């Protein structure tokens, strides 16, 4: 195990595509994921995909995940380690792995290159009672009902009307929960209108200019107080009302999981448009540490479709670092990947991401300026 050319941490769409591209260029890789099966977030996405990725729009996320996973499992160049968490990356280049099944053990590997594709985690929201059992992230609600087939609750209050909030609301209805309302602090709905119309047809009110004031209950959620807000997002006194729910589902954005790249010495930039703290990287998914590459939601919260292309780009850069693959071939795949990425980023929802990427490209300049200001 000690002569690993490439280690990939995370088996979501980004990591899976990276492994497949690396294999195409003749690179052997080790792919690590904490779960019992590959696919990352895709294993819970029962809805048909939005986005314009060639052939992918209209296919269910779970089906895309399954296709990619099967290809990876069958590829002789890829060693898959499931139920295995990457727990540390050390100065001497050791990646520490903790395997839980079939047997519990710690494994050290020293890969020549690493692609981190660890994805993202749910954001919290500050309100009294937000720590009560029954306040769940949207991802957790999806995991419970779509992976384990357990109903998260009878009556749900959804916070956030972006695509995730809307889609998870629909999935809750499909599973048999009642969604009392979707609360949105902004004056307009965040996600696609098709998704919003779908949940409205089921009679779920979408309350814009509303927020949650507190979670009610002693040892679990028994209700929630919501209220209308003014232009400054301050609750308007007298508009509070209590809704009778046993689950409060937070769909208020995601944040990249940066612990490991941070430990590996990758510079962390703060770009709110991309989800907050993200590893600094260039357009070819290279970081400031020459043998470390990033891809997917970790590199900025976006979509599975873009995560897959970023995975391919990261693998191309790793190949280049290793001196593997044919130069001309790498260049032509790269060009094609950038073209597809650009096409995907043509929607209105991509404006924010594009602004974020621009900021990221100027990040080093910004840092210099700031340092200059401090000194001056």
């Amino acid at each position: 195990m000690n002569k690993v050319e490439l280690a990939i941490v995370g088996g979501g769409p980004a990591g899976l595509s990276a492994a497949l591209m690396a294999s195409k260029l003749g690179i052997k890789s080790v792919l690590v994921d904490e779960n019992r099966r590959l696919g990352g977030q895709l294993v819970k996405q029962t809805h048909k995909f939005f986005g314009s990725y060639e052939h992918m729009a209209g296919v269910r996320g779970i089906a895309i995940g399954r296709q990619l996973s099967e290809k990876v499992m069958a590829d002789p160049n890829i060693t898959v380690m499931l139920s295995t968490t990457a727990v540390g990356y050390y100065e001497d280049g050791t990646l520490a792995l903790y395997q839980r099944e079939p047997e519990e053990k710690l494994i050290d590997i020293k890969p020549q290159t690493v692609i981190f594709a660890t994805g993202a985690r749910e954001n919290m929201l500050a309100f009294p009672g937000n720590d009560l059992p029954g306040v769940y992230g949207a991802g957790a609600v999806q995991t419970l009902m779509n992976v384990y087939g357990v109903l998260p609750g009878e009556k749900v209050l959804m916070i956030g009307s972006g695509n995730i909030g809307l889609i998870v609301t629909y999935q809750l209805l499909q599973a048999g929960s009642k969604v009392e309302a979707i609360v949105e602090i902004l004056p307009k709905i965040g996600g696609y209108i098709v998704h919003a119309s779908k949940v409205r047809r089921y009679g779920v009110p979408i309350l814009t200019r509303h927020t949650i004031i507190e979670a009610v209950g002693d040892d679990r959620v028994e209700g929630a107080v919501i209220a209308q807000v003014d232009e400054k997002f301050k609750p308007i006194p007298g508009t509070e009302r209590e809704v009778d729910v046993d689950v409060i589902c937070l769909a208020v954005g995601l944040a990249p999981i940066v612990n490991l790249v941070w430990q590996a010495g990758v510079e962390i930039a703060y770009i709110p448009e991309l989800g907050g703290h993200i590893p600094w990287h260039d357009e070819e998914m290279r970081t400031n540490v020459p043998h470390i590459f990033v891809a997917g939601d970790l590199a900025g919260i976006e979509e599975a479709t873009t995560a897959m292309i970023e995975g391919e780009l990261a693998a191309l850069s790793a190949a280049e670092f290793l001196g593997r693959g044919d130069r001309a071939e790498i260049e032509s795949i790269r060009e094609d990947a950038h073209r597809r990425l650009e096409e995907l980023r043509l929607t209105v929802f991509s404006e924010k991401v594009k602004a974020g990427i621009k900021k990221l490209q100027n990040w080093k300049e910004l840092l210099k300026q700031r340092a200059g200001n401090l000194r001056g």
Partner: protein
Amino acid sequence: MKRLDDHPILDFDRGEKVIFYFEGKPIEGYTNETIAAALHAAGIKVFGYSPRKHRPRGFFCAIGKCSSCLMVVDGRPNVRTCMEFVRPGIHVRRQRGLEPIVKKGENDE
């Protein structure tokens, strides 16, 4: 809460039905369920208490990233029950704050 029997899109491969113990009481679970999912299906939402204010804790992220679901499993504290699968006969109990770390082979329960 209940387990879903018929879902419009999904079929669930739950694995084998087994018995495990929560605070000493037998609970039914399946081998393809995490401990957190099985407890939730049994209507148990409080998994532990916070270290200082002893506030009830349940799960939050379900992907092993928030540490809200830590419980004591077969005497070992700090087990992320949203990632750990049900095994027959395991003893699971609520964690109360920071519990002492046990050394390998030194189970006190």
